């Protein structure tokens, strides 16, 4: 996308520079009609529409792939934001609540049910997925998946008052044994 944007930018700039370099053009109504065809119909409508249609299709396909789909492997966890803490619950270990650290199994898709206890927050683990808002009265579901065990930094990414900067959390992805141990109540 960056390469495409750069190419378009350079193309437009080249047209602009050329406009200054070339000599005076013929002035007549016919010449203007021709110019309208080239500049407005050709470049303005044709070029813009083609590029944008391609980009949109790409975006939709990628977006579709990121959608949470049900499957036997899926683990469900719950994330609740509040000023300025995150607490996490686990469908596979009812009653278990952790603060500041979300535990997940590595290599399995995880659905995070995100909600808020007060103002709007946003759940964002840049290396695992895009962000999704935590909104009072709603539960939004975000699909994440960590390929390898380890700690992943997470932040709140919707401005939520004075404690915003330090409103962070960690996602800890366990290997299979670690996950079973966590569910059985052992502190990892």
């Amino acid at each position: 996308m960056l390469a495409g944007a750069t190419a378009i930018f350079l193309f437009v700039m080249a047209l602009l520079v050329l406009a200054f370099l070339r000599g005076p053009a013929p002035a007549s109504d016919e010449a203007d009609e021709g110019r309208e065809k080239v500049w407005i119909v050709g470049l303005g409508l044709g070029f813009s529409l083609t590029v944008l249609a391609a980009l949109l299709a790409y975006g939709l396909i990628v977006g579709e792939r990121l959608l949470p789909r049900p499957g036997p492997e899926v683990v469900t966890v719950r994330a609740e934001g509040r000023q300025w803490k995150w607490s996490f619950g686990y469908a596979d270990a009812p009653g278990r609540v952790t603060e500041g650290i979300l535990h997940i199994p590595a290599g399995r898709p995880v659905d995070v049910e995100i909600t808020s206890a007060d103002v709007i927050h946003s759940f964002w683990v840049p290396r695992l997925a895009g962000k999704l808002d935590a909104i009072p009265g709603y539960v939004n579901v975000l699909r994440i998946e960590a390929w390898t065990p380890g700690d992943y930094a997470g932040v709140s990414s919707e401005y939520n008052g004075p404690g915003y900067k330090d409103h962070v959390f960690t996602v800890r992805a366990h290997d299979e044994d670690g996950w079973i141990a966590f569910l059985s109540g052992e502190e990892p």
Partner: protein
Amino acid sequence: MSALRRHRALTRIWASDPGWKGWFTTVNHTDLGRMFLLVAVTFFVIGGILAMLIRAQLATPRSAFMGPDIYNQVFTMHGTIMMFLFAIPLFEGLAVYLLPKLLGTRDLAFPRLTAYGFWCYVFGGSLLIFSLVAGIAPDSGWFMYPPLSSEIASPGINTDFWLLGITFVEISAICAAVEITVTVLRYRTPGMSLPQMPIFAWYALVTAVMILTGFPPLILGSILLELERAFGMPFFQADHGGDSLLWQHLFWLFGHPEVYIIFLPAAGVVSTILPVMARTTLLGYGWVVAAAVTLGVLSFGLWVHHMFTTGIPHMGLAFFSAASTLVAVPTGVQVFAWIGTIWKGSPQLRLPMMWILAFFVTFVIGGLTGVMVAVVPFDWQAHDTHFIVAHLHYVLVGGFVFPMLAALYYWMPHVTGRKRFFKLGETAFWLIALGFHVTFLAVHWVGLLGQRRRIHTYDEGQGWEVINLIASIGGFVTAIGFALVIVDVAVNAAVAIRGSRDPWRAGTLEWAMPTPPPAYNFASLPLIGSRNPLYEDPDLPVRLARGEGYLGDPSRDRRETLTLEIASGKPAYLVIFPKNTALPVVMAFVTGGIFVGMLLKLYWLVPLAASGVAALVARWVWVLGSRHDEGPQEVGQGLALPLATEVADPPGWWGSLVLLLGNATFFGSLLFGYAFLWTVAPNWPPPGYLQPDLLGPVLLLAGIALSMAGIRLADRRLRRGTGPWLGLLLGLAGAGAVGVAAASLLLGTSHDAHAYDATVWVIGGYVLFHAGLTGAMTIFLALRAAAGYVSGSRIGEVQIVRLWIDYTAAVALLGLGVSWLPGVLT
């Protein structure tokens, strides 16, 4: 009569009061335009200082310069000031100054309204600046998302300053929009049919209509949030059936069109200046007009792209992603039309042109990153990072500030009548252009590295330190550049030598007058036959000064101008403008009482100030009109036209029509909110619905029938030369019946129980207000008729009241209908 004597006579008629008094009593668009621009630039300087504080804070990690409490106020106010107190008012100021001159007329349609809007802007803006100085400024971010901005999370007065101050300022946007729309549609010089209009007028028209349809959702949202904060009406509280997402919808329903409301005037400036700089005419005028209109329409269909991360269903995302990318097409059409224009002509690299080139470079990058964030998966990562901050600065600074600098240097000789002599502007250009790109390329970069927006500081070791330092240095260079521009303008305005009348050899009418412009603009109004009248007829300014156009005879000793039929450019009627008056500034001050009363919770002050405003409005309208028929008036060139007081569609009727468009959008937003809460909000349905008895609907229907029939009866009786009394009495009874029906909504629900009740309260209150308004208008009309201002030929005021009565009937039927329906069905 010689040109000089005509000049003196017209100046005596049109001039503002001399001395300091003139500042407060002027209704002249040239004066008010300059005042608007000056105040907007002042706010820009304040906003710029805040920007420098932000960059100083972020220059180093773990900065101890500001704590989060102060920093949150600073970034909130930076955004708020730049958006609401700088960008929109700067457009208003430019349009107020320029439009009548471009259109070849003598003032805007409603000179006192211009002044009222200006003073509302000054007073509302002052409220916000006061909060900043006092350290109690809004601190929830410039888009004020509840519940962070609700009473629970922001108990202080800070948020109220925002909600009330901004709503106060928005009065001026609505006034300006009404004014610009009516002026462009009707106040042009003879012969200027719609296709002959200067391109800027088209852009101003589209922008004004967008303000009328884009601002009401924000005004509604602000009122609802203030009602929630002051009286506990739970519109945005999920526990009581409200929904914080309703605010986001209302805000961005305004906020996205707002971006184009800011961009379109700049595009209008580019479309005006660029052809002159390239010594040619604009390529594809019709296409550019179509692109501007399309952009205006499409911009209302993509507000949800600010909410991609709120959990909107996937189909919705796809739709709004498509709309967001589609909006790039009309933008592309305009950009290529401009580049084609340069190819067509022979461009000259003068200062305004340099700023337009800076606009191209910056805006194209901003547009491309905009298309990137319209792609949903990308946005899920970039949202709320500094990448977005950089993107929006590229769009707004590149797409608005740079073209406005082009406008500044292009029209400065017009405002001052002087030629630029000290060339600080070129140095300033390079400082700003380079400084800006250094800053915001760095900000893009640090955003991609994950730096969130609005954090008050950051820790070492994330690789952000150097980038932020570079961004801050670039920011300071930019600021020095802006300071230099101000010095450049001040010095050149004060001491530079007198310049020639049309320094750029442009073709539009604003250059067909002496500079600095006289109070009356044109000594006589031209008959034109092309988009660039000065290219067709270089002697036009001299002929106008000699009085060889319309209305060149000042002997009637009153402020006269012409209106046209909308499309054709045929003269329609003669308008007499009001004289200098302090009424606007007084009324703006009293209006302020409503807002201050709400702010300080002095609720007794609110109805008091509102009655004061009502009394002043009555006074405002009373001084217009005439007690006898004057018949057709000579306007020169052998043409005689009726006076505005003796037609059925006077300016006030057009103004009402346009204002009602904005009002209808407000009401539509209210119904949208009702439907949204109903279908989407958690904790619905409410415990119980309002159960109407038979009396309410009967009163409503009878009231509507009576008021609509009454005003029509009064109209017919007046035209036959008999008294309107019976009709007016019926109309008043009708308004009363509608009012009682609306009041039953307020009595049947408790305002703070559930979002449903609160919404029904607001709908009932809205209808009640309109019933009261039409009742008051009917009484006013009766007084006017009794005093002899209304007759069979002076029938315009009756049409105005009829328009408001019909509107009230429609909103009463709809509003009370949807409030009663659920109770009837269950």
